Structures are given as C-alpha cells and as structure tokens.
C-alpha cells in the first residue's frame, strides 16, 4: 500500500508540476483565437458557462453554469493577444441562493503563433489558501 502511495505521490507531483496543462494548436488565425478566449460573448460558446464581465485586470467575471450555479473570477492579468490569467473566487452560489466554498484555482491562457497554426496553452493550477489571498 505504501509502495502505491509512493507511486501516487510521484504521479501527483508530475501532475502538479505540469499543473493541469493542455497545449493545443488551432487551425485559425491568432486574432480569432484571442477573441474566442478574451471576449466574454465568445467565451460563453465554449467554456461551458454563460460569462458576463469585462476582461481587465482587477475586474470580475461572472459565470453561470448550465445547472444554474453561479461563480465569479477575478481577472489577474491580460496581455492582449498573448495571455489572460484569472482566478476563481472561493465560493459558488446555488440556485436557491445558498453559497458553498470552492477551491481556488488559477486559469491561464497563453497564445502564440506557430508555423502550423495558433498555439494555446491552457493551464489550471490549484492554489493553496494562503497564496490565493495574494
């Protein structure tokens, strides 16, 4: 059992180092890709939630998921056509108005052009409570 624990630990560390990371090349121009990632109206088409708010540092974006649950995120950094970073706030609101604590994760999109298309790196990183306060 402990040997499996060691293996699980190594796997987790490997995951953690890479965080949750996906690198995808899209067959679309970089400005089209950037718009899909940074314009809340387009964001709503693929993220899996209806999104409202402006993507500027310090501002909040509000997400409403198909099951009616609402959650907000704080925009941390925007480098137009390059990167967008936001952080989930630590709670969500259910349809009956009750709130529930949720873990804080930071989501990053990094966009760059390559010879074969537009590369987007998607990162989701779980934050400790202490760092989440920063």
């Amino acid at each position, binding site marked *: 059992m*402990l040997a499996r624990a060691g293996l*699980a630990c190594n796997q*987790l560390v490997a*995951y953690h180092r890479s965080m949750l990371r996906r690198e995808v090349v899209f067959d679309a121009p970089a400005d089209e890709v950037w718009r*899909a990632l940074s314009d809340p109206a387009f964001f709503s088409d693929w993220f899996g939630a209806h999104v409202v708010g402006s993507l500027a540092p310090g501002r909040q974006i509000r997400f409403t998921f198909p099951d009616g649950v609402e959650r907000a995120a704080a925009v941390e950094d925007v480098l137009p056509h390059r990167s967008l970073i936001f952080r989930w706030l630590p709670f969500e609101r259910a349809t009956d108005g009750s709130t529930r604590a949720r873990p*804080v994760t930071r989501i990053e999109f990094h966009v760059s052009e390559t010879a074969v298309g537009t590369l987007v790196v998607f990162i*989701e990183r779980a934050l*400790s409570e202490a760092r989440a306060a920063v």
Partner: protein
Amino acid sequence: MNDKRAGRVFAALGDPTRRQVVSCLTDDGPLTATELAARVPVSRQAITKHLQTLAEAGLVASAREGRELRYRLTPAPMADAMSWMVSAGAEWDERIARLKRIFAR
C-alpha cells in the same frame, strides 16, 4: 470527491521538502521529526512545520511514542487529488473540443 481537500493536497505536495518528507515516510515507514531531520536537510523545527502542513492536508497522522510523535503517511487524500485532476482534465478536454468545432466552421 472533495476538491477543496485536493487543493490542500496540491499545496502540501508543491513544496520539494515536503515531498522529501513524504518520500522518507514511504520508504522508511513511520518516523519521528528527529528521524526525519536526520534524513532531510532542514532543521527539526522546519520539519515540524512541514509535518503540520502535511497533517492539515490529511496526508500524515501521528501517534505519541514516549516523548516524541511518530508520523505515518495516510495517502488517501492523494486519491481525491488525482480524481480532481482527472475530472478537471476532462472538463478542459471538452472545452477544447468545443473550441475546435467553433474554428472548424
């Protein structure tokens, strides 16, 4: 699946010294803070702080043995963290699939 706990597990394992502590507990079985300080190149005081963080993440438990506490690994929360990784990963894969369909139009 408790994903708040998963966050604590990731934070706990995010520190290389704590990973070393976990590694020692895996390899050598339950150890005291003194025994860990002999294996990991930080002070006993630092070890104790790290053990506290690991305990708060549910990754270690302790039992009193004479004047010292002996710590053992309780790896179940790692399974929670792994589950979180898998389901969050699946969510991103769905998002990426939707994005690809959008650009394919």
